[in-house]
């Protein structure tokens, strides 16, 4: 009986306390909460507007997904409005409300400017539903291209990063290696990797291995140079400390030089990632008959501009995702650093 009564009391008490507290806190944060709710509500309205813009006028072209896009945007608008109304607009979503509003407005204007009134010249600027159509109807080809790109990029980048890292450590550590490798590095490195394309295409057994080589080259150069400078800039005091504590040369390399150089190495890996994306796309356009670069080329050849935009969006998500992954790895490995940039 007693347990029952305490159980039933506690929520009741909590509830009444909550009810009492609610008006006070509401009046306190009134302008802020209204602003937040307003941006949520406006975002919902913007997406409703986008849905309406799809339906109010006739399409100027022949697009099959206009209705589906309209329905999807109504559903999305509904969920934003519901979330705002019931206060279930979590902190993350709430902070994104202005962005949702802007994006909804952008889509509405885009829809009207292309599909409905063709203020933008039509084949070159397809409406949103045309791009959605690519994803719903041409996804097998797009997916295959994405897989091909990811595979090529992964293999090339991993090879380039590994070789670049090893070379950088060796040049930074050994004078003899530096003597021989440094001039070669200065001669080959600054050359854009794409300049090797003709050479690579007839030297390597397949265009795939040629492209892997080029991506590895584009990655390897910045990784080598930055690893090298990282190892070379390690303070002698660290080596002195380790040596007086009984460290052997292998310990000095693995436990002193490399960890101390890691912040530089990550800068190299970041730069390498950027230049390897460029090489990936060029290699796919010129050599390998697969991948997103090739898909872009193909789409342009057939004047399928919607496909081109669809592939561009996928590519941008992939590149941004790769950089996010790299930065997450860095944050994990370099927790000891102060003030690292958040991506």
């Amino acid at each position, binding site marked *: 009986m007693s347990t029952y009564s305490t159980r039933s009391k506690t929520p009741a008490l909590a509830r009444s306390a909550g009810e009492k507290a609610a008006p006070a806190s509401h009046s306190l944060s009134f302008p802020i909460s209204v602003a937040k709710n307003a941006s949520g509500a406006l975002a919902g309205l913007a997406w409703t507007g986008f849905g309406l813009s799809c339906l109010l006028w006739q399409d100027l072209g022949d697009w099959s997904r206009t209705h589906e896009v309209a329905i999807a945007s109504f559903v999305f608008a509904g969920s934003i409005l519901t979330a705002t109304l019931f206060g279930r607009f979590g902190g993350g979503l709430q902070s994104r409300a202005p962005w949702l509003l802007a994006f909804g407005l952008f889509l509405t204007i885009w829809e009207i400017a292309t599909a409905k009134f063709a203020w933008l010249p039509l084949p070159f600027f397809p409406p949103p539903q045309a791009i959605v159509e690519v994803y719903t109807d041409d996804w097998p080809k797009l997916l295959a291209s994405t897989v091909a790109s990811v595979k090529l990029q992964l293999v090339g980048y991993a090879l380039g990063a590994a070789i670049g890292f090893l070379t950088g450590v060796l040049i930074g550590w050994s004078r003899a290696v530096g003597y021989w490798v440094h001039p070669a590095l200065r001669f080959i490195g600054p050359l854009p990797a794409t300049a090797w394309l003709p050479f690579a295409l007839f030297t390597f057994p397949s265009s795939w291995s040629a492209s892997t080589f080029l991506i590895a080259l584009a990655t390897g150069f910045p990784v080598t140079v930055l690893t090298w400078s990282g190892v070379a800039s390690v*303070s002698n*005091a*660290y080596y*002195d*400390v*380790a*040596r*007086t*504590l*009984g*460290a*052997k040369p292998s*310990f000095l390399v693995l*436990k*002193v030089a490399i*960890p*101390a150089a*890691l912040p530089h190495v990550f800068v190299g890996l970041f730069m390498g990632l950027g230049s390897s994306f460029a090489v990936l796309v060029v290699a796919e356009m010129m050599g390998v008959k697969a991948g997103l670069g090739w898909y872009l080329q193909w789409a342009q050849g057939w004047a399928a501009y919607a496909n081109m935009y669809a592939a561009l969006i996928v590519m941008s998500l992939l590149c941004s995702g790769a950089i996010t992954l790299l930065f997450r790895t860095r944050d994990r490995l*370099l*927790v*000891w*650093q*102060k003030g690292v940039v958040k991506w």
Partner: protein
Amino acid sequence: MVAVAIAETDRPAAVGASLNVEGVSHAFDIDGAALPVLNDVSFNVRPGEFVALLGPSGCGKSTLLRLVAGLEPPRLGALFEDGRPIKGPFPSRVVVFQDPTLFPWRTVWKNVALGLEAQGVLKSQRPRVDAALDLVGLSAFRNAYPHQLSGGMAQRVALARALVNNPRILILDEPLGKLDSLTRISMQAEIAALWQRSGFTTLMVTHDVEEAVFMANRVIVFSDRPARIKADMTVDRPFPRHRGDPKLAELRSNILGLLGLDANW
């Protein structure tokens, strides 16, 4: 001289090593010209002694410590630890530098464990790391990274990193030079107490005359570069010492006179 007041017998006999510096001269190459820094320096340190090296800035004291540590070979002469020539660094002679030089990518615990790890004995000797951290009172910070520590704490970690190796000669290169004066005063007493308890031989370079006479039982004063020994004196006052001790004050003004600074005191 007054009778030696330090109870030498209280300390374990085998811990500290003797150090012999015999006719050591050293020079640096700067732009092709040899810059002499040490000029025929000879002295002997008995096991368990605490010797402070004083001298004008840049006179070559720190270079002498590098030679004792085995980080560099001398141009002329030789150094001996317990009669064996010093040919390279060895963990029986560890250095605490003016900068703590903790490895920023390692936690406090892993910094202290550095020596044992480098010698390949960490797996079986982990409690020694905990004990060393206890000794300097930083057990609570075992998982902190160096950038989270104050200057005094970092220098304590550096001290623990040295002591965990059970050194026979502890080499202190201005270990308190960059600390604020309050931290410096408390750490002077701490290091002196540690030395008394453990009995290792200690060689300390300092710029602070008061610090030298407060901590050491022998002070060697060097001349300007290239450094020669100008004076070698015993500080025969019992521990724990008091900063107000008139004998220490007298000794301090003697030393300042040797350094040509008596007019400024």
